[in-house]
């Protein structure tokens, strides 16, 4: 579904991506793991066309990204906790996105009900709590039958109940063949959801493959230990 080769990006004097080769399988959940500054956000931004790579290629669903916006019709994107316009309601934002996308089918709002958000969805975002805004954020990402979900720290700020609702929804999406790319700093949570792991370090892919295999290779019982073990085994990566 996603394939990147030799992706490089430099911001000023800082090399953020240094020849990144990654792939994410269609219909699977891929966990994007890495320390702060490893390049996770930059990879997502290049994937969304927000940022352009200096060199290398990236393709979504077999189509190389060339600056035309059409490919984004299949993407549902949930950014990290965002401050959206304070006076607009979730319903207003949904209207904006519906128009921009020229969506033919009515938006799927089942998450509004699942979150118990019916009342807050009509109220200005400025008066909602951070967690509630994050729920609105999730509703928007899942609303347009995406075939590729890009979720950046989706559970940050959510209460345990809402977390459960969101994770169940992600698993349901996976069951119908949606590809999911997800980042989180909570590794046990990723372990519950992810089929594959994609570990970035200093702008390169340090390790990628099925989560089970990662655990086997590092003789670990959990993803958290496996990632720690993997990083320990590559001291030159840590040294950078």
């Amino acid at each position, binding site marked *: 579904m996603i394939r990147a080769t030799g992706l490089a990006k430099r*911001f000023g004097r800082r090399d953020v991506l240094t020849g990144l080769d990654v792939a994410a399988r269609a219909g699977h959940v891929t966990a994007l793991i890495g320390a702060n500054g490893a390049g996770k956000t930059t990879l997502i*931004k290049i994937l*969304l*066309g*927000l*940022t*352009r790579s200096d060199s290398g290629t990236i393709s979504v669903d077999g189509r190389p990204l060339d600056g*035309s*916006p*059409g*490919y*984004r*019709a299949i*993407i549902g*994107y949930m*950014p990290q906790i*965002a*401050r*959206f*316009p304070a*006076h*607009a309601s979730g319903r*207003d934002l949904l*209207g*904006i*996105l519906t*128009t*921009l*996308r*020229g969506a033919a089918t009515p938006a799927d709002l089942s998450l509004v009900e699942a979150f118990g958000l019916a009342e807050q969805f009509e109220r200005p975002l400025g008066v909602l709590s951070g967690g509630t805004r994050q729920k609105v954020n999730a509703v*928007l990402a899942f609303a347009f039958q995406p075939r590729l979900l890009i979720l950046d720290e989706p559970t940050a700020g959510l209460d345990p109940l809402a977390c459960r609702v969101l994770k169940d929804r992600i698993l349901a999406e996976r069951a119908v063949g949606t590809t999911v790319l997800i980042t989180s700093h909570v590794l046990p949570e990723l372990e519950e959801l992810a089929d594959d792991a994609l570990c970035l370090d200093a702008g390169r892919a340090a390790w990628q493959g099925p989560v089970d295999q990662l655990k086997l290779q590092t003789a670990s019982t959990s993803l958290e230990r496996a990632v720690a073990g993997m990083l320990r085994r590559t001291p030159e990566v840590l040294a950078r």
Partner: protein
Amino acid sequence: MTTMLPVLRPMIRETLRSRWLLALVLGLVALGELLLRFGGGGPTTLVSLLDVALIVTPLAGLVVGTMQLHHGREMTELLLAQPVTRGRLFVVLYLGAALPLALALVIGLLAPFAWHGMLAGPGALRVLGLAATAGTLAFITTAIAFVIAMRVDDRVRALSVALVAWCITTILWDGLVLLVALLLGEHPIEVPLMLMLALNPVDVARVLLLLGSDAAALLGYTGAMLARLLGTATGRLALLATLALWILGPCLAARRVFQQKDF
């Protein structure tokens, strides 16, 4: 373009609901009312209002435009993640910021004249001209603000650049013009002064408005020269064309920066 209207509407509503815009309208209405009530309502009223409008409009356009784009950065990123071209999105963001500001200025400037019954009659054209020019300046300065906001990622630095740009266009530029006039006093200075005038949209707007009033005589030698050179129909047309170029240039620049930017 019509397909973007439903997107533009909530954007404009968002800007209209913010407090600074209301403060701007109320401030202009209060000032206009004061001037009309106690200033006698003569031509000096209009010149006083013109002075304020030419200082406040660039300030509002530059500072608020810069801050608004920085403040809405996350929203912009969400919109960019949708299947739309950046060109279309730029139109929405730009009009969403510039249109409400222009509207606020026009309403704030015209309202006092409206209920004093001065929007019909001999002086009406000048009042309407002032409002239209202020609205035009709102579009120009908002476009410049967009360029600043996208080129300078740090909020505080972007704000200071915007303030410096405001100082230059409203205060420093006139000092520079005066300096050049003094230094080149012995030589024919029409051409360099015309060029300097054209390089500052606020000056273009001021001259355009002053030419229409008796106050041009107050400007002394420069005013007399300007009246002679630009007071003709051709001169006014040239000023209008310069103002139009000032809308087009910054808009195209802002659009270009927007299309190439890494968010």
